[in-house]
């Protein structure tokens, strides 16, 4: 049975579109964090009192949760980015983009589990 084409939109769902959307969302989020992170690290230039006072914010439990979320955003962007690069340099791989996205998600879970374990311990210490 032929599924009727969606008319009037180029967005057709599926792994390709999700990969694109998540890449964009995670990229923007990581960039916004990077702006703040450069400013807070630059405070090192103004000596220990100021830097230690500011960096103590990172030990707050809510910020620890956001740190875990950041790990999740960065890791997705990194793995999915490698997939994009692989497809761009070896165009034949685009035939297998769904499988490649599956590999990205598999690696994501494999790497997120230990990260969650170690960072989760840090979170519970901070409570």
């Amino acid at each position: 049975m032929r599924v009727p084409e969606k008319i009037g939109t180029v967005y057709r769902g599926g792994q390709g579109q999700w990969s694109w959307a998540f890449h964009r969302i995670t990229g923007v989020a990581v960039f916004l964090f990077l702006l703040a992170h450069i400013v807070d690290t630059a405070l090192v230039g103004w000596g220990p009192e100021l830097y230690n006072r500011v960096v103590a914010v990172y030990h707050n439990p809510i910020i620890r949760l956001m740190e875990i979320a950041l790990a999740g955003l960065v890791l997705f962007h990194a793995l999915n980015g490698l997939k994009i690069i692989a497809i761009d340099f070896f165009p034949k791989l685009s035939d297998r983009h769904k499988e490649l996205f599956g590999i990205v998600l598999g690696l994501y879970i494999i790497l997120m589990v230990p990260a969650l374990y170690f960072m989760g311990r840090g979170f519970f210490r901070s409570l």
Partner: protein
Amino acid sequence: MAVSTRPTTQRERRAAYARPRPGSGSMELWTWFFMRISGMILVVLVLGHFTIVHILGEGVDRVDFAFVSGRWSSPFWQTWDWTMLFLGMLHGANGMKVVIEDYVRRPGPRAALKSTLYMVTFILILLGTLVILTFDPAKGRSTVLGG
């Protein structure tokens, strides 16, 4: 311009989404290439940085002035952090430029957002570079800033 009637044929469907061909100048190609190369380098630098600073040991619990000061006594970590700063900001800013051009179609707001983006990028690269280059572990501060 919005099309009021829904496209029905394949040709109309394509026409509805017709957009100017992306510039095929050497700059387009160069930024495309830069995003791939910097991306591959950043995967190593950023995931390495994140693992060392946020996951190993007590993670951020041990990050304080002494920790950063100790790392920046080594040219290796200074180079690592500076490369990450430089490539990360350029890679991120170029990504944001693409996002702005995709969603902000009116020329005024588009120019305003893009110039703000470029200014912030320039200032933060300059600030980070200054701090990394002029940080003096013996003095416990930058020799130029925060004097």
